[in-house]
């Protein structure tokens, strides 16, 4: 129950493509997620430490993230500012850096932990050797309301923000007090018609849950 506290899936691995920046959100906190050309994923507070512009509208050049406002550059990994174009001859002070969060990739998702010293070992062990990634569904309703609805559909809590049932593991991403994303993994590698049927079933079930939760929240 305790071991997944703080780690949340925020995007599917294949969404975090090279030279792109993904805007994610957990518990009201916006996160800029980007992959460098060596494959390393970064998850940073979504604001430039200089003038607060969202880094998710910045430019991923493969090594550094460049802010759109003044072109300040931040290194993959450390988040250290490497270059201030207004003062090209000066090395930026060490204190000028983005705020990196814990980040890792597992089960086909990018996971983020807002804690400062996040331990990757605490990413929930789902006991899935083979899995099929299901459609992630956005719901304009609080996580508790969504979870409540899912429990009425044959899912049972299997840890904080995790549910199991119907041969499926659901991972809840609470964006903020009124928005939730439900990620899903089915055990086993389904193929062909079986896979299509699985995806369709999940989609129908989650659409029903979403519509009900959004009607209630509206």
């Amino acid at each position, binding site marked *: 129950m305790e071991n997944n506290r703080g780690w949340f899936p925020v995007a599917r691995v294949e969404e975090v493509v090279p030279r792109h920046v993904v805007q994610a959100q957990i518990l009201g906190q*916006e996160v800029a997620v980007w992959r460098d050309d060596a494959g390393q994923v970064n998850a940073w507070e*979504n*604001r430039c*430490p*200089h*003038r*607060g*512009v*969202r880094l998710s*509208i910045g430019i991923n050049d493969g090594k550094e993230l460049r802010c*759109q*406002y*003044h*072109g300040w550059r931040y290194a993959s990994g450390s988040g250290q500012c490497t270059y*201030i*174009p*207004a*003062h*090209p*001859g000066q090395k930026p*002070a060490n*204190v*000028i850096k983005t705020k990196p969060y814990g980040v890792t990739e597992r089960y086909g998702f990018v996971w983020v932990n807002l804690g400062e010293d996040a331990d990757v070992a605490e990413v929930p062990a789902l006991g899935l050797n083979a899995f099929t990634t299901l459609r992630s569904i956005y719901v304009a309703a609080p996580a508790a309301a969504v979870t409540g609805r899912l429990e009425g559909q044959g899912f049972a809590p299997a840890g904080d923000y995790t549910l199991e049932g119907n041969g499926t593991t659901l991972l809840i991403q609470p964006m903020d007090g009124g928005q939730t994303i439900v990620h899903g993994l089915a055990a086993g590698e389904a193929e062909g018609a079986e896979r299509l049927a699985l995806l369709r079933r999940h989609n129908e079930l989650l659409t029903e849950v979403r519509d009900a939760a959004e009607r209630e929240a509206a």
Partner: protein
Amino acid sequence: MTEAIHCTDRVALDEWHVLAAVTELPVGVPKATRLLDTDLTIERRLDDTVAVRLGETALPVRLKFGYAWTTLGSPDHELFDIPEYAEPDRRNLNAASVGLYCSAPRAVENFLDLGHFAFVHTNYLGVEPHTEIKPYKVEITAERGEIVATKCIAYQPQASLIATDGHDVEYVYRVPHPYCAILYKSNDVDPARQDVIAIFLQPSSEERVVAHMLLSVLDEVSPDAAIRAYQQLIFSQDKPILENQVPKRLPLNMRSELSARADASSSTYRRWLADHNVRYGTLPA
């Protein structure tokens, strides 16, 4: 229609605020507008005078620079002046009145900023590798307590509609009001004189403004529409930046956002807002 004043910031209340470019108001048709979270109506009469009302109560009005201004409080001062506006050969026009999802202080700070030219106004007001910002001078004047930044130099590929080549442009900036700023930039016709551009923010709320932009330029050839279009293009490049600043209110705590030497104007403006106790649109120091 609510008649209550929904703002408790004494400094913002006791200040003059812009509401509209007079010639853009319909004649004889009251129009709803909003200032400091307070619903008002504004009406241009046949004789070009302007009435501003809070419910049934008439508010004080000033007509200046082609705009109507009002106050919800009791200012102990008149509106600042822009002497150049009265020069007979100037083209004075409202470039645009644009709604923005940002605070007024964030918009003022963007207006004062030199460092974004190469990145936000690429190929117009700046271009890489001409990104260096040389030291400039920022002071607070003794007479009116305005912020004045001088000797601000920027290399500009297309400094104005009529500029024909890239060159260094010298700017002077004034901040005479918490939500208004004026810039003077070297003119491409007469090297002895300067074009004047001002931004007057109408804070509808702490995080929503209408930006009114005054142009007072020396240009005898370009049609009004072309002069406006150029300025609107420049402004349309700033809008997505301003609407993606987090938090929307300007943090006056100098440790909340890190500054470089090029940010001298911005840092002075933040301290000036804190010294004047401007709370509306800011986060406390």
